[in-house]
Every structure is written in C-alpha cells, then in structure tokens.
C-alpha cells in the first residue's frame, strides 16, 4: 500500500510549521509508522537543528530531485525514534532551484518507501510553497491566534482548495489565560472565521524552545503540553478518530477558582 504525503504550511512565517512537522512526524513514528520528514525550506534549513540531526547531513532534497543521490542516501535515520527519517533541505542553493515536476516525481517515489511523508513548507505562497504542496494528499495549515496569521491562513486555505486539497487547521501558541481575559482570539473565533475542520489545538509551551535548544524530540517529553497535543494530533491523523481534541486550559486558573471557593486566597 502506498503512503500518504502531508504538507504542513501557513502563509505567515514563524507560526510553528517546523515545530509541528517535526513533532507530528516523530509522534507518527512512535505510533509504529515509517515516517520521512522533508525540509522544503530550501536555502534556510531548520528541521535538521530542531531534530538534532545537523551533524549527520550528507545529501539533501535538492540532490535527490536532481538525481545526484538516491532517497535512501539522503534520508537520515533518527537514532532515538525508530522508523523516523529526515531528508534535509540544502543550505546553499537558491530557494527556487527545484522544479515542480522534479518534486512531484520524487514524491511518487517517497510514497512507495514510507507510510507518512511530512513536507515542511517555507513561509509564503511562492514557488517553495507550490513545490511543497505538489505531491500532497493531505494538508495541515498552522496558524497562531492573531489577525495576520489567520488572514494568511485564509489565503493559503483558498490556494489549497484550488488544488483539491481539504486542509485541516492547527491553532498553535494558544495562551489560555489570555483567551480567558479576552485578550486573545479563542480557537472558536478562529474556526468561525476560517470555517475549516480542526486538526488540533496546541498551547504556548516553554518546553518548545528548550527542546529545540537541545535538538531533542518534544513528543518524548511527557510534561510538555505542546508535545502531548502533537501526539494526539498524530493519533487522529493515523486514524484514531476517537482521540478528543483537547482545549488548552489554564491549569492554575482552575486551582485559583478552587482556592477562592474554599477561601484559601
């Protein structure tokens, strides 16, 4: 059976595509699937450092598309998580070096070798984005709860629909206490504006930076709320549709309410 290619994209930069791609990819591998994560951000590679694999790069996706090496030669095996592979971007090439037809051909080969292939799209809607979606069977759109990110997400959703992809949404960096205070759009607000299906909700979490500092998988940290949110997203993508979408809560606020009720505060 052929695998699935899932593109992770956003329009706006810095909203968490790379974080989401590496975490969901790692989580799918933990579910026992054979997973390749492809960095499509040519010229600005990041996935390798986020995943802690930067010292092991030999070939990259440009080498694969241009026929200088085989997929197996470019795919770096993660030593901590079985069945997880990274195909890095090249750092030196021009961002528009890849042809859409070349990428499409490699995508067809990737589908034969892996259960899931995750494409980490660059920001923007230009060629790098087009190359990231050309082989995709499914799409995840990441946005943060702010006006510009949601507006850009809407634009990208339109472009994905035009290519017959039905994207699902990840709202990242939710801060429950600010949502509670009415300072931040809630996920319901975002859903209402964008009207697409939800893939998951990911809270703001200090552990994200720490895990990227050290290049260790976020999803292996049981105390990381974001890591756990990505694991649930992966489970649902992998067909466990009964795993509920958890709404990030402000834990201490619950505690505050209880303490207030009992006159402890």
């Amino acid at each position, binding site marked *: 059976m052929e695998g699935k290619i899932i593109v992770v994209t956003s329009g706006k930069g810095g909203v968490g595509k790379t974080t989401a791609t590496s975490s969901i990819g790692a989580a799918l591998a933990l579910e026992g699937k054979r997973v390749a994560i492809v960095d499509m951000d040519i010229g600005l590679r990041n996935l390798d450092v986020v995943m802690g694999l930067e010292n092991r790069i030999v070939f990259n996706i440009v080498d694969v598309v241009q026929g200088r090496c085989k997929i197996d030669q470019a795919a770096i095996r993660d030593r901590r998580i079985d069945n997880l592979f990274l195909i890095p971007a090249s750092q030196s090439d021009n961002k528009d070096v890849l042809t859409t037809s070349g990428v499409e051909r490699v995508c067809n080969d990737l589908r034969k070798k892996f259960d899931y292939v995750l494409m980490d799209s660059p920001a923007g809607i230009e060629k790098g984005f087009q190359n990231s979606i050309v082989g995709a069977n499914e799409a995840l759109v990441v946005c943060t709860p702010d*006006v510009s990110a949601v507006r850009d997400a809407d634009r990208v959703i339109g472009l994905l629909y035009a290519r017959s992809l039905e994207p699902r949404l990840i709202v990242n960096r939710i801060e429950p206490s600010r949502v509670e205070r009415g300072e931040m759009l809630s996920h319901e607000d975002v859903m209402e504006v964008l009207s697409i299906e939800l893939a998951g909700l990911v809270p703001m979490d200090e552990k994200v930076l720490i895990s990227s500092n050290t290049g260790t998988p976020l999803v292996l940290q049981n105390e990381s709320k974001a890591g756990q949110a990505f694991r649930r997203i992966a489970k649902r993508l992998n067909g466990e549709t009964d795993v509920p979408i958890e709404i990030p809560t402000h834990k201490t606020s619950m505690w505050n309410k209880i303490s207030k009720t009992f006159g402890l505060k």
Partner: protein
Amino acid sequence: MLQGLLKRFTGQKNSKEEAKKRLQFSLIYDKLEVNDTTLTDLQNDIVDVISKYFEIDRDSLELKVKRDDDVSALVFNTPILHVKRKQA
C-alpha cells in the same frame, strides 16, 4: 461572564472582539479585491438583468465595495433613463 462584568465596570473593550471583527472584515474585502475580473463580470451580469426592466445609462453606472466598521456592502449605482414596457 466574570469577564463581561469586568468589561462593563471598566468600560474596556475586549481586544479580541476587535481582532475578530477586523479579521472577518478583511477576509471579505481580500476576496473582493483579489479578483477584479469577478467584479467586472458581476457588473455585466447585473446590467443585463436590470436592462430587462429599465433602460439604463451604461456609462455612468458604478459598482463599489463600501467598507464600514461593521459591514461591507456592494453598492451599485445607476441612473434610470426609462422604464421598459413589460413584454407579454
């Protein structure tokens, strides 16, 4: 609820409400702006329909997108020259 009360006392507007309104507005406007040909097509279709009933001055009509704080509207303005006789 508590938030609502607080708001009433302090007279402070929730910034997220404003964010949501601005978003809803800009998304509609983005789509209207993106496609100039859509607007022209729409204008031609409207003219065709109205011309069945009225004789209008094609040169002085205008189709505009009007933006207000809360709503955006499509405004179509045309002088009517004659009312056409209904054909049986």
